[in-house]
């Protein structure tokens, strides 16, 4: 089933030029190739635990995180490799974290599901579905009380919509007019349960609208549409109008995690969605504009491959956290 698209697409303050177009393509390809490599390393046992791939959903992270400044905050989910990379967390630090190495972005304490980067205001990596929403509300409350014009972008999936914390958080953010950009990545499945089987009403943005939050749904396979909507949303949030809600309708091409046998959906459904692969769609658009030659694509692929190779080398070279530090960072060390 093709996603329904936004009901209102206003003229957006985004002028696509060739440079920006190629950069969006490069970013989506970085996520894709990084994750393909991650899946390979998982089968080799280099990466363990859960590994939730984002493949198919790249346009959401690549489009939306463009709209944020370095002062803004990102609260994410356990399917967050793409979010972290787009936020600027170095690929090597992400890969090393998945290896469990001390040079990982969470010193090997978090793994794939718990990527953190204080310097980039990247607050995880939350593996309790909907658990990040209250944190985002609190971060935004801190900004609001300290008169800082910052946006807290909170990403979560359609599964989170069934949780109480989703409704509590939307209500509180709307009640207190807090600067939160709620971004629902609706990939149509809460693990293996299709949205029609977990939501009485599947139009998610309508739930946000019912709290009085400006809400819209966008085609999550169209990186430009996501970016335009995210810029519109971030501008509204930054101007002090309270929260904003975006639902990006997207699709996960790979299994929920590496353990998932995908018994709950038909291959034909996946294949149909792959026709709307965000990278292929955007590549075609760039070609139509005459901005992407085969040589351009080769160069981008080579540059991305080099980043991924460097990330793997960085992870391989990383040290293991010494065992004597097992209980480090449970409490904050106090001077004196």
């Amino acid at each position, binding site marked *: 089933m093709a996603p329904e698209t936004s009901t209102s697409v206003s003229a957006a303050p985004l002028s696509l030029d060739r440079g920006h177009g190629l950069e969006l393509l490069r970013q989506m390809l970085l996520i894709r190739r990084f994750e393909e490599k991650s899946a390979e390393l998982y089968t080799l046992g280099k990466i363990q635990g859960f590994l939730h791939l984002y493949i198919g959903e790249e346009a959401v992270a690549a489009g939306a995180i463009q709209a944020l400044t370095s002062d803004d905050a990102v609260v994410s989910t356990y399917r967050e490799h793409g979010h972290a990379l787009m936020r600027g967390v170095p690929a090597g630090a992400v890969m090393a974290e998945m290896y469990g190495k001390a040079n990982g972005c969470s010193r090997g304490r978090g793994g794939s599901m718990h990527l953190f980067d*204080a310097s980039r205001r990247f607050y995880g990596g939350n593996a309790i579905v909907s658990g990040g929403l*209250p944190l985002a*509300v609190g971060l935004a409350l801190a900004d609001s009380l300290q008169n800082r014009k910052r946006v807290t972008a909170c990403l979560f999936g359609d599964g989170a919509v069934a949780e109480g914390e989703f409704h509590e958080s939307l209500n509180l953010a709307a009640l207190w007019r807090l600067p939160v950009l709620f971004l629902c990545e609706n990939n149509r499945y809460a693990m293996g349960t299709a949205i029609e089987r977990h939501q009485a009403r599947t139009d998610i943005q309508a739930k946000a609208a019912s709290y009085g939050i400006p809400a819209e749904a966008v085609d999550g396979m169209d990186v430009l549409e996501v970016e335009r909507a995210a810029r519109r949303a971030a501008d509204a949030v930054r101007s002090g109008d309270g929260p904003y809600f975006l639902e990006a309708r997207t699709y996960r091409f790979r299994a929920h995690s590496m353990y998932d046998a995908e018994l709950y959906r038909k291959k034909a459904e996946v294949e149909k969605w792959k026709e709307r692969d965000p990278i292929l769609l955007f590549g075609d658009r760039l070609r139509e504009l005459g901005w992407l030659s085969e040589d351009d694509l080769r160069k981008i692929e080579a540059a991305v491959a080099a980043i991924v190779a460097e990330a793997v080398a960085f992870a391989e070279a990383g040290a293991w956290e010494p065992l004597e530090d097992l209980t480090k960072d449970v409490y904050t060390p106090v001077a004196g």
Partner: protein
Amino acid sequence: MTTTTYREAIRSALREALRVDPRVFLMGEDVGRYGGAYACSRGLIEEFGPERVRDTPLSESTFVGAGIGAALGGLRPIVEIMTVNFSLLALDQIVNNAATLRHMSGGQFSVPLVVRMATGAGRRLAAQHSHSLEVWYAHIPGIKVLAPATVADARGMLLAALREPDPVFIFEHAMLYPLEGALDDAAGPADIVHAAVRRPGRDATLVTYGGSLTKTLAAAEQLATEGIEAEVIDLRTLRPLDMPTVLASVTKTHRAVIVDEGWRTCSLAAEISAQIMERAFYDLDAPVARVCSAEVPMPYAGHLEDAALPQTDKIVRAVREVLESHV
């Protein structure tokens, strides 16, 4: 020194914290216009305004989570949860976020959050408002757990909690709010590292905390009339436990009774008993005894509730039995 109540002592600490630190704000159900379910914040909204004395919807998980987020964002939130049974709605945020963020991020984030809540039985409020679940919290690495049992600690421990870089949970026994005691209004933060010997003695060590301290001290006084001198230790901080103070006393008295309003199974009393066994086994002259709550959801009827809880006569009896017992 003035005589005041436990409730007023908490209010004086809240007021001082709001006055001296612009990062501090209080948030919870009915803390503002209502003045707090236990009146601990009465008048504060008038003095500090609704931004800093903030009424919340009945959304425990989200306002505790928002406290965590606000702490990450540079503020010093004090979150009030009306009662420990309601805190169960926020356990996700407490266990999965507050306690984990520092470790899970490899030490990048600290969560300087203070959460206060009422705990304990005695008010005929039955099985959804009366439990003592402090031990559930004391189980969790990454947080600290305090249980003020005196008027001075009610103020001093809250001020101390606000100096901690990590999440601190304060359990205020609901029966203590009207308790009267001496308070130095200028007293600063209390020591939250050490347990306190509230009554010295040589014959047995009584270990307790929170709402059971008064009952335990009354038991010790009664025993004194029989010539038995019990030492009473108020744990004060339930995580991390100050076991050296407990062990020093047991090494002296050779007998221990633990009084804990939690259910006996997997209780704090069980933990303390295990640690005494591990670390002072050869100093014991009798098995460690426990006086805990009966294993029943708290009943409403007064005679049943009283029977379910540790009481002075039960403590006296337990101490006598321990003194009569020999290994």
